[in-house]
């Protein structure tokens, strides 16, 4: 009966209750949707980085990534690749020769990273071939083709079919030069990557620097499902215990921050909105209690326990807050799934986003965990907000509250 009374009391002053319910709904909608948007951006970036830069898992000699020492090679790469490919969770594996170099043209030079790849293998682990804005991805069999990022092309003032000269160190420590023809220009979501990374056929670079055949600097693994990353990484590590095996989380600390702290951050964000709303809820409930001074006095007089009166006001506060929260969550889920499907196009300001590695279309998303945490938070906030009006109610002296005059 207490529940019934509390629920009906919520609807006694419809305008007053609706105002706060709508405030809660809108506040939460705003908070939840921006959270979903940020989560969507994070997920987007994680996806882009995995699918154009790191893959899910990389294998290399321990310490290689520290200074790209070309002597730290993964020998016997073919055997390792074959072994990794037997795992059904693996979508593609690619061996990469990665060498620091200098790229020069008549207009200037730039320190870059040469990636020697087998194009058909690399296409299985990276979407880079789909991100070409000019040219093609090693379509012809000609030697010494290079695919570079737009940023680098701009910096070196090169166009398609221009030549650039790569200066590298051989395995014996000598300096060599190689002239390469730009056959493709790509543009990813990460302008740093576009400035740094250039791609050539592995056999062209092997010949130039004397890199042994059947060796690689890095072996990149792409999985069918991101959720398998940890499991597969552990398996590969066990198989090749002398190698360093790292997942994208370890490879990109920035992504780790994004994926790890996002949920806490979003909850803090919504939490602040809820705290602001709590003041409105307190105000509404205090007004409700004041309006009903006589009625509450009557209830205490006829023998309703103060604890029950307290509970009644608490329940009213919780119902009021939850109604608003449920509406807010429903509207949020609806708008998140709509935009989660169609995406939000940020192309107008996309230049700015690209610089940080974001894609211009964001698909908002939120996990179930978030909603569970949110529900707990709403109830906690409602309970805290209810304490003041409920305390006010039970402090009423029945004799004074019911005085007819």
């Amino acid at each position, binding site marked *: 009966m207490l529940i019934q*009374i509390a629920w*009906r009391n919520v609807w006694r002053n419809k305008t007053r209750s609706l105002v706060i319910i709508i405030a809660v709904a809108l506040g939460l909608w705003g908070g939840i949707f921006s959270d979903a948007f940020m989560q969507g951006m994070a997920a987007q970036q994680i996806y882009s980085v995995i699918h154009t830069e790191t893959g899910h898992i990389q294998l290399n000699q321990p310490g290689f990534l520290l200074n790209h020492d070309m002597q730290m090679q993964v020998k016997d790469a073919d055997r390792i690749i074959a072994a990794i490919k037997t795992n059904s969770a693996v979508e593609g594996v690619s061996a990469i020769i990665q060498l620091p170099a200098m790229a020069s043209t008549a207009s200037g030079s730039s320190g870059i990273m040469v990636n020697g790849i087998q194009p058909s293998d690399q296409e299985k682990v990276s979407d880079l071939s789909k991100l070409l804005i000019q040219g093609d991805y090693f379509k012809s069999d000609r030697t010494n083709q290079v695919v570079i990022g737009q940023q680098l092309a701009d910096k070196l003032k090169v166009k398609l079919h221009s030549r650039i000269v790569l200066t590298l160190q051989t395995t014996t420590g000598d300096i060599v030069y190689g002239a390469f023809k730009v056959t493709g220009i790509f543009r990813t979501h990460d302008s740093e990557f576009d400035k740094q990374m250039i791609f050539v056929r592995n056999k062209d670079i092997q010949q130039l620097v004397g890199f042994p055949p059947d060796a690689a600097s890095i072996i990149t693994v792409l999985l069918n499902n991101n959720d398998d990353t940890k499991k597969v990484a552990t398996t590969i590590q066990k198989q090749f215990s002398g190698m360093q095996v790292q997942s994208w989380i370890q490879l990109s600390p920035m992504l780790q921050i994004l994926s790890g702290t996002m949920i806490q951050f979003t909850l803090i964000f919504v939490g602040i909105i809820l705290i602001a709303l709590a003041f409105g809820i307190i105000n509404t409930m205090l007004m409700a209690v004041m309006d009903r001074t*006589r*009625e509450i006095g*009557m209830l205490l*007089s006829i*023998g309703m326990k103060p604890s029950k009166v307290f509970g009644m006001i608490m329940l009213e506060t919780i119902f009021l807050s939850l109604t608003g929260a449920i509406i807010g969550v429903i509207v949020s889920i609806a708008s998140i799934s709509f935009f989660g499907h169609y995406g939000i196009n940020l192309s107008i300001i996309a230049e700015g986003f690209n610089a940080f590695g974001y894609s211009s279309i964001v698909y908002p998303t939120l996990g179930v965990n978030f909603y569970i945490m949110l529900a707990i938070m709403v109830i906690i906030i409602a309970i805290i907000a209810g304490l003041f009006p409920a305390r006010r109610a039970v402090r009423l002296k*029945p004799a004074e509250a*019911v005085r*007819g005059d």
Partner: protein
Amino acid sequence: MPVIEIKNLTKTYNETMVPVHALNGINLEFEKGEFTAIVGPSGCGKTTLLNMMGGLDQPTSGSVIIENEDITQMNRGALTDFRLHHVGFIFQAYNLIPVLTVKENVEFIMELQHRNKKDIADRVNYLLTAMGMEDKINVRPKYLSGGQQQRVAVARALVSKPKFILADEPTANLDSKSTDTLLDLMATLNEKEQVTFIFSTHDQRVMDKARRIITLEDGKVISDTKLKATHESINS
């Protein structure tokens, strides 16, 4: 044995600049089945006296003994329990819970007492019929007239068979016809249920229905008249 025994009761309100001596040494006894009016001009202490008897407020001195127990010594929790189980209240207004129907309002007390559903249903039906409210059981109070609301309040006060019922100016907001109806219904149930009714009033028509009239002035009893023999004394 009296139902209520009041001994040397005084109440001084100290919240004001000048202390108000609302009750100045009241001594009274009430027997089972009484139908008693407490009368006197506004400010004479009627409400204060009823509040002390119902355990709604603490006196400054003196005692209110109900079946050998001095309720002025009870703590807040015990008083709440005492009111729930032993006193029926009828106020001048704001008696009913607006969000509950007539039936739910009357059931409320027995539900607070955790009585079983069948007992509640039987008792509530009986009383609402007795009060002539049987066709309004599912109506909310705001759709009732003042007189009808007070009839529901009487049913609510009687529902758990309390030791006595305190009604503070129950007819103050009613027209004379509703007043007569309400008083007659109260008198009938007083006879039937043998429950003590004590009500305050300054309405002559209400006084005329009472069997005992206690007159207060400046917080003192100035007269106490038994007009007719009570039901009990006729029988005995």
